[in-house]
């Protein structure tokens, strides 16, 4: 079937540019038959883009080529990719819950006789595929009744039924239990013996150690290197993943030591029963607390719980010693907590409304005349002040927010929060989708707010950003706070320390560096 000296998959010189921004630059990847090849990198390193190019969902820039069995295949064509045996299993599964396992396996390629579905034939041909995976459920089981892990196996079965030889798994264990993960690993081992190449994307070091034969690391859209099984070790991987300088535009004026020791925000055993599992921490006056962790570690959910946007099943929130535990955003606002959403357009701004209305929406009822009539001159005053203080570039305060640039939109949203006169500011990815100029302005603003004595919590996926602006950083993993790193004047927080904690490395292989204070509170 294949010659042993020709790799099953070769991706050569793959680049991808979106609107002039290079998402991938000259990346290459080779996978052999019967190999598990791990693909690693920070959020935004370009892993998904590379896999989308492999699946044909995206077309690479000129010069990039994909070879299967040494043959160049057409790019940017999902059908072609599939016909060459490439299958991608995404984090969000695409099964129909009310159909049977067999029907899902043959979704779109149903076996029929004269247009009438032939259930028997589908059940019969699903059986050997499922046997290949060694699964315990029957082909006529309803997908609705399967566990998440079993659903993933159905997806793999679907790929096999289409004669897939290269299977990409994008963080497959994120939502699996320990037992299901074991089952998946067994299946992956079986696939290996059957000559299939598995490209495995994961942030979990343990999985990489256990499974992968080789590991390729991407950073900022570039190829960093590929390690063989015996070369893979945590420190090396982390260094490859983060190794870059903290750019100079993080300039902290306020000093952590300036912050008094009075606690402004205190969060105690907060849980939502699902994604946040008993988080406790405190933020002092004038302190910027960073929360780091991988996407899906429960950071956003934690902030939303503190703000009362979701309901907590357990735990308390205190502001300046008063138990506030908000049950709605409204209550949180009244108690001086504000929250900047990570999804500016979807959950933050009213795009069809004016800048002025967007800035004033939280305070218009406080300013109102006779309990309900808009105080328009007050509103314009506030808006003018916001435009001046935050340097929002606009033609008029009546301009619709939807027509502003990303950076200016973010500033409008920040202005809204500041007008509410908060004591605690929760910022979720404050510089996402913002150009570099606005970014440094937002950092300056956060710094200023801290020196005015506000308590600030910043969630960010960008490690340099967290390191640049936070006085102290918590690391979250799987809904828990797994570590804390404090910056001192001599020893700033390092990316290695944060990555080590957030990938769960410290569970098996604790990395301590003399320059850092790593407190572990593993449960």
């Amino acid at each position, binding site marked *: 079937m294949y010659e042993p000296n020709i790799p099953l998959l070769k991706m050569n010189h793959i680049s991808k540019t979106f609107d002039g921004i290079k998402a991938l630059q000259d990346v290459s990847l080779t996978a052999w038959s019967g190999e598990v090849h791990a693909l690693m990198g920070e959020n935004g390193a370009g892993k998904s883009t590379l896999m989308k190019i492999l699946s044909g969902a995206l077309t690479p820039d000129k010069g990039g080529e994909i070879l299967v069995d040494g043959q160049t295949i057409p790019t940017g064509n999902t059908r072609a990719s599939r016909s060459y045996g490439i299958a991608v299993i995404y984090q969000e599964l695409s099964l129909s819950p009310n159909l049977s396992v067999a029907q899902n396996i043959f979704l779109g390629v149903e076996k029929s006789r004269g247009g009438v579905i032939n259930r028997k034939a589908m059940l019969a041909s699903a059986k050997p595929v499922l046997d290949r995976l060694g699964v315990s459920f029957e082909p006529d089981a309803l997908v609705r009744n399967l566990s998440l892990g079993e659903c993933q196996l159905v997806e793999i079965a679907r790929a096999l039924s289409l004669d897939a030889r290269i299977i990409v798994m994008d963080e497959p264990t994120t939502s699996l239990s320990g037992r299901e993960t074991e089952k998946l690993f067994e299946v992956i081992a079986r696939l290996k013996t059957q000559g299939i190449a598995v490209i495995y994307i994961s942030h979990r070091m343990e999985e990489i150690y256990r499974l992968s034969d080789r590991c390729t690391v991407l950073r900022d859209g570039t190829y960093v290197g590929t390690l063989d099984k015996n070369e893979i070790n945590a420190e090396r991987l982390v260094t490859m993943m983060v190794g870059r300088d903290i750019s100079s535009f993080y300039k902290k004026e306020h000093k952590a030591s300036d912050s008094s020791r009075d606690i402004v925000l205190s969060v105690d055993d907060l849980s939502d029963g699902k994604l946040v599992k008993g988080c406790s921490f405190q933020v002092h006056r004038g302190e910027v607390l960073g929360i780091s962790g991988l996407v899906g570690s429960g950071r956003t959910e934690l902030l939303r719980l503190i*703000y009362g*946007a979701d309901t907590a099943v357990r735990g308390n929130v205190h502001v300046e010693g008063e138990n506030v535990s908000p049950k*709605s*955003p*409204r209550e*949180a*606002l009244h108690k001086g907590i504000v*929250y900047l*959403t990570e999804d500016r357009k*979807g*959950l*933050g*701004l*009213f*795009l*069809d*409304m004016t800048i002025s*209305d967007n800035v*004033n*929406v*939280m305070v*218009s*009822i406080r300013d*109102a005349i006779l309990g*309900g*009539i*808009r105080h328009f001159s007050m509103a314009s005053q506030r808006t003018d002040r916001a435009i001046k203080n935050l340097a929002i570039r606009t*033609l*008029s305060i009546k*301009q619709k927010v939807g027509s502003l640039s990303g950076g200016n939109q973010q500033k409008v949203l920040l202005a*809204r929060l500041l007008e509410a006169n908060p004591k605690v500011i929760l910022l979720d990815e404050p510089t996402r989708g913002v150009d570099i100029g606005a970014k440094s302005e937002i950092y300056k603003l956060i710094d200023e707010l801290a020196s005015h004595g506000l308590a600030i919590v910043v969630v960010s996926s960008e490690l340099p950003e967290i390191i640049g602006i936070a006085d102290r950083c918590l690391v979250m993993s799987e809904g828990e706070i797994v570590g804390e790193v404090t910056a001192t004047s001599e020893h700033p927080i390092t990316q290695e320390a944060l990555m080590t904690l957030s990938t769960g490395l410290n569970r098996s292989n604790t990395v301590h560096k003399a320059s850092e204070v790593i407190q572990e509170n593993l449960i």
Partner: protein
Amino acid sequence: MTSTPLRDQSRVATRMRSTFVALGMLPVLILLAIAFQLMTGKFLTGNNLSIVMQQASINIVLAAGMTFVILTAGIDLSVGSILAASAIVAVKISLWPGLGLLGIPAGILTGLAFGLFNGVLISFLRLPPFIVTLGALTAVRGMARLMGDDTTIFNPDLPFAFIGNGNILGVPCLAIIAMVVVLLSWFILRATVLGTWIYATGGNQEAARLAGIKVWLVLLFAYGISGLFAGLGGVMSSARLYAANGLQLGQSNELDAIAAVILGGTSLVGGVGSIWGTLVGALIIAVLSNGLILMGVSDIWQFIIKGLVIIVAVALDRYRMKGGART
């Protein structure tokens, strides 16, 4: 910074575009009026315009309530039925000797009660507005027939008949009520905090909640005021007819009200629109009916033409808006 002339230019362009958008369907209304005048020669007379206003008034009142609802990205299919039920209550109370004028508040409050009922189901039980008000469309119609013993109730000495048939300085009372309703709606939407909240909730309900807006209050208010205006519409109808009938009154009025709101440029997805647009939309529908009657077009063809005009007008409007938003 951009150079000054460029900035001025783009400012002028912005202003022109916003004027154009604000005008909305007004040019269509004016063209229709001129066309009917040219074709019939008797459209633009004081007497005829007064008739048009009178015919438009009840739909204007219903459509004003509908504007609030549609701005919150909802829909109220029950206003025709609520109008019938309120009219029945108004006429029945008007028969009480000496206290007949109580029929006015009774009718209005009946409408408010039904509207709040819709609002409670939608804001607290989070049921979809389409389903709730579709159910109310049928159920309230049944209640109207029940309350009216499924016959027509007359009151030849209706104490508030002046509402339906009187004039003040030559302007029909019905038209004056409609204007007051429009001005009140304009005030609420434009000048109150609640009005801003309505636009915000319709534009993005989850963002509104996160901004601390009482979304439940906004929804309750929107369906409440829609019911209240439908109740007022019931009082107006009964005052005009000296009678109310649970089966026929207000049939498919909700569709005319929705058509007026859509013609007025209010977006069905919520958050965008104005009460002035709704007024123009309701007037277009009334002018079309009146003009076609003047031209002697048969009832059947009136339906067909009205329906097509609504579709074409809205299609043109969407096309125009798209062009504006893209630049």
